[in-house]
């Protein structure tokens, strides 16, 4: 009988501990939109609208105010069953704190690069890091091949290995001006300035209209939204 009570006591203690941690896991919320607006290309209302989007994405699987990898995939592909080398890279680049989850700050700062008004150098930098799979500071031929093969597999386009190799040869011939078998930042920059369409994924027109797509009903009396 005593043992039974003991067990019940322990059970209750466990429950209480559980509840306690739940309380402390509160999301940060939109703490300082003005600060984020200063450090990104977004205006304060755009930050607020972005926060509405963030809330929607981050509550899809676990409602904890944070976006995990699964929620990110869900938002991108409308299914969490799709694995993608590139989505993983994008997620990793967004995750500047390297803790496997995205908080709103990381989300906003990363998306700022995709705004039509963001400086092109930021886009060039982001895309370079995206393709630098091993993060060695240069894009190797093997990395390019890996990415091409992954993309082709995903799209159902069939190309023979010979054809793939010849396309990569052609690309390196043009891009690798130092002829060292890798594409460094400077070579990437030159390539992209010659072929601006290579950066097309780095701009999201949707970000320009975000305040109308995700209206937020927060009122700021002092905000000057120029």
């Amino acid at each position, binding site marked *: 009988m005593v043992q039974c009570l003991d067990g019940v006591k322990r059970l209750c203690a466990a429950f209480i501990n559980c509840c306690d941690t739940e309380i402390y896991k509160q999301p940060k919320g939109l703490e300082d939109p003005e600060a984020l607006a200063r450090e990104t290309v977004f205006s304060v209302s755009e930050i607020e609208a972005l926060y509405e989007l963030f809330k929607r994405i981050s509550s899809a699987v676990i409602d904890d105010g944070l976006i995990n990898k699964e929620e990110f995939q869900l938002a991108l592909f409308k299914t969490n069953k799709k694995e993608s080398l590139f989505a993983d890279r994008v997620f990793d680049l967004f995750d500047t704190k390297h803790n496997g989850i995205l908080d709103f700050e990381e989300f906003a700062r990363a998306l700022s690069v995709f705004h039509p008004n963001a400086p092109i150098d930021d886009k060039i930098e982001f895309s370079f890091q995206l393709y630098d799979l091993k993060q060695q500071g240069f894009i190797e031929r093997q990395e390019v091949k890996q990415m091409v093969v992954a993309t082709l597999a995903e799209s159902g386009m069939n190309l023979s290995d010979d054809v793939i190799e010849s396309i990569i040869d052609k690309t390196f011939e043009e891009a690798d001006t130092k002829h060292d078998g890798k594409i460094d930042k400077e070579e990437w920059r030159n390539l992209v300035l010659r072929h601006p369409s290579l950066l097309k*994924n780095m701009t999201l027109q949707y970000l320009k209209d975000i305040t109308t*797509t995700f209206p937020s009903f927060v009122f700021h009396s002092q905000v000057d939204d120029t």
Partner: protein
Amino acid sequence: MMRDPWFKKGYKEVNFYDEEVKVEEFKVTELNAFDIISFSSGLNLSGLFDDSCNSSDSELQRFVSTESPEKIVEKIEDFAKVEKLKVKSKKDWGVELGGQSGNLVFGVDVYRLTEKLVVVEAKRRGGDTGCYKDMWKNKLGPQLNGLSLSMAMSPPPPPQPETSQIAGC
């Protein structure tokens, strides 16, 4: 004579020795490895904002063909005539088609991949996904994709009469 201002009006100098444009070959955009990579849907973050289910848009969006860009554009124009679609614009190896009721706009572009291969890419630019699915995914896409296999296969069945067309495209 060339220096005379009258002559200069509207005169555009033609550079016969322009290295960029081969005189024998039409100006098709050439794709490099990074162009291919940028086709990846994982790199397209617009899904974050676009709530609509994208699967019908992304299916058969691109395929590789051994046909020439000229032949492909010709086929598209023939298709437009049969299906009564408007050719809204035509540029270097790209055609934009519009449905009669204005409920569909989509573009088909052709890019050169290698000497022998091109990539055909379709993109819905406006209107109904149902119309797009009917026109591209069910009809034009397979027809164009089948072009490169046309030697092996019998020609595709003739397009069905009006009744198959989704009303209001």
